[in-house]
């Protein structure tokens, strides 16, 4: 039933991409996402697509896995594409009553979809090759300078990792409560939207109660082990850059240069 849901969706494999320092992957993904929005040119997208495919092949994550990440946002994609397609003024090439299709709209819709698709694919590739814990570690380290501005970076990272840790537990709990209520004749499949929402109450109330209880227990357990926040706390596996990480940064820069060159020097399409 519900336990088939994967969140954080890490795909375990032994590849260079998996072994990279998570900070490299976070920064690389950010660079990639930002780069997607800096140009409006067919060649640029070709380069972006090519680089994405290359990294995917190296990462040993099957393409089908990455494409699966597009499923939940599919409707949003279609919706934005259609909006742009129909509501962009410009040269009309097709008209049916009040509906007008313009070349500009077509172009805009296409570029926007491609951007969104690569944005999602790029970030799924990162989450597929990085465990949630590595990810929070990287964020904590990357955001560390903000400490000087009195941003509670360690606490935020701790909250994130606790939240991630609790997802599978709560999913299991939901599954159990659902079954328990089904054993008492609860029906989650029929009725209209309002009825269905009402029918969720017997799951939601126990789930919240148990989440609060677990949070209390965890807080006590942390207190009992003298947790007192981030100051002076060391890590068992501190993040350290290695040769391959610097190489990856260089590749990132190479990607930017290549992108810039293709957008600037190749004929506009």
């Amino acid at each position, binding site marked *: 039933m519900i336990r*088939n849901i994967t969140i954080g969706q890490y795909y375990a494999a032994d590849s260079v991409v998996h072994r990279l320092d998570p900070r490299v992957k976070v920064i690389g993904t950010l660079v990639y996402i930002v780069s997607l929005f800096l140009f409006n040119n067919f060649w640029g997208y070709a380069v972006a697509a090519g680089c994405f495919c290359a990294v995917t092949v190296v990462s040993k994550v099957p393409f089908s896995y990455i494409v699966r990440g597009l499923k939940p946002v599919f409707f949003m994609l279609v919706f934005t594409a259609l909006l742009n397609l129909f509501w962009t003024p410009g040269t009309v090439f097709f008209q049916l009553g009040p509906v007008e299709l313009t070349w500009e709209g077509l172009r805009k819709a296409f570029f926007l979809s491609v951007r969104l698709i690569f944005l999602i694919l790029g970030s799924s590739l990162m989450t597929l090759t990085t465990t949630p814990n590595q990810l929070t570690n990287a964020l904590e380290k990357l955001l560390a300078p903000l400490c000087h501005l009195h941003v509670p970076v360690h606490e935020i990272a701790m909250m994130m990792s606790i939240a991630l840790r609790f997802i599978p537990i709560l999913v299991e*709990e939901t599954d*159990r*409560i659902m*079954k*328990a*209520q*089904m*054993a*008492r*004749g*609860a*029906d989650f499949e029929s009725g209209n939207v309002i009825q269905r929402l009402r029918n969720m*109450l*017997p799951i*939601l*109330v*126990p789930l919240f*109660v*148990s989440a609060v209880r677990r949070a209390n227990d965890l807080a006590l357990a942390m207190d009992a082990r003298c947790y007192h926040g981030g100051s002076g706390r060391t890590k068992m596996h501190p993040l350290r850059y290695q040769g391959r990480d610097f190489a990856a940064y260089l590749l990132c820069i190479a990607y930017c240069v290549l992108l810039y060159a293709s957008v600037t020097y190749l004929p506009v399409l």
Partner: protein
Amino acid sequence: MSVLLKNVSYIYGKGSSEEKLALRDINLEIRQNEFAAVVGHTGSGKSTLIQLLNGLEKAESGEIFFHGKNIYDKDFSMKMLRSKVGLVFQYPEHQLFESTVVKDVAFGPSNMGWEQLKVELSTFGALKDVGIGEELFDVSPLALSGGQKRRVAIAGVLAMEPEILVLDEPMAGLDPASRKEIFELLKKLHRERKITVLLVSHSMEDVAEYASRVIVMNQGQIVLDGEPRKVFRYEKELSKIGLGVPQATSLMHFLAEQGVAVEDDCLTVQESISAILKWLK
């Protein structure tokens, strides 16, 4: 005959990378008015087995019959099955959700589509059975003590008037007094209401004292099935699969092994005492 399992197998996590055969080729009959206990190591398939009985999980292969009707037939009503085979999960108090005790207990019967009067009658009846007094009827279930919560949760299943009551470790996490209460409740239901009780338990002492049949599971299979007195003779075999026998039984086995001529099929402390006294004479 009330429930019959024929060649039932179940695969856990089907389609994922961690497929595991949780139950293999189970043949089992739960007879009317039995008090049976299922024992087994963690992961032996006990929980899966009891969830198959009321159709919460579906067997991969094999058939399950309830009063002679195949529960996987298209026209078989799962709702009816779930009211007739009442399943009390582990820590059932975690599923309480309504604002008052009465409303929570009435959840099951109202889902059955019964008329108001019948719902109320069965709700009050169940609460009376589990020994929850009227002064607690309009209290929030979350404000009760652990033992009370557990009893309210059991009442929530009893109110559907099941013929078979299946309980997954109903005593887990309770203090000795509450454990005793729950057991006395089950005994009473079994004796007075003729309800069939099927119980998953880790306490061999409890099993020996209350159950008339023990079903031992290991790695998805039933390895022993019979009266407690007979099953607990196999102390060595049981310990091999990580299970024990009641301490009193174990002591008598030990004495017999040392060459003391006592009757060694005792189940309770009381029985052991009289067996030893008999030998001393």
